[in-house]
């Protein structure tokens, strides 16, 4: 769904040259490390949204949260992921 991709746009710059300079496996490992730092519920919500592409409404129902709480949490996690990758030398 477009909104999932649009949300992820906040983690990247849109430049298609930078990503090519990084090993895909290293990036996957970095993201896995990032996910390992999250509490289980927050990690699950992140995966639900960006792996399963669940809607925010679906996630809110699954975790008994409000739409706004899920939206805010995802926004916070995207910022954290971006900062996490930037701190490790990824130029996004």
């Amino acid at each position, binding site marked *: 769904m477009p*909104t999932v991709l649009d949300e992820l746009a906040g983690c990247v710059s849109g430049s298609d040259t930078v990503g090519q300079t990084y090993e895909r496996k290293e990036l996957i490992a970095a993201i896995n490390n990032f996910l390992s730092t999250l509490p289980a519920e927050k990690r699950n919500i992140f995966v639900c949204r960006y792996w399963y592409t669940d809607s925010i409404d679906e996630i809110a129902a699954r975790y008994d949260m409000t739409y706004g709480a899920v939206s805010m949490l995802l926004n916070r996690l995207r910022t954290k992921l971006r900062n996490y990758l930037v701190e490790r030398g990824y130029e996004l």
Partner: protein
Amino acid sequence: MKKEELYDVLGDVNEIYVNEAHATAKKARSLWIKWIAIAACLCLVVAGAIRIGIGLTPSQMTDIFREGNLIEITGQDELPALYNGKLLAFNLNFETYEFYYDTDGAAENTDDWYSLLASARNTGGYVILHCMFGETSVEDWKVSMVFTKEATTTTTVNGVEVQIARNDLSLQYEYWHYAIFEYDDVVYDVRVQSDDAEYVYEVLNQLLQR
């Protein structure tokens, strides 16, 4: 890196995390996401064109983006909200008349708040802001705020009917104008952080220039 590439990389995260997230009712990642991604790119192109068309200078604009049918224009990074003179929010996000923010601190000590969650809904005449303290959905304390809002007005800009309103947050900061209009079967929600109504019309004129 493109967002599609990041999405692709996210598809290879640890399988354990994937299984944990959906203990039941798993579904495969949709193949049609690639087509949706292409459509999303086209949308970004449209948004980019609008951005260029608006021609705002960096000092006037920190963010213009299209998310779904939303265009947001802010004049500064922060849209603070106050309660009893205390800064409640330093990053207030609007989402179709509902906005949320979080900050740090403890409920009983406003100097040390943490995990503050606030939501608000436009009731038509004013906005009530509810604040929750604690982790996500855990509600420890609640306070309500009322922001007055001037009456909404409907006007026509370059042949397009536009609904314009202004939220008066009763702060020394700039007012938050918003305008809603439908163009080519898409409803746009434009937010302009400025106390200058003429500037709002200027933005609308540039957005809706034929």
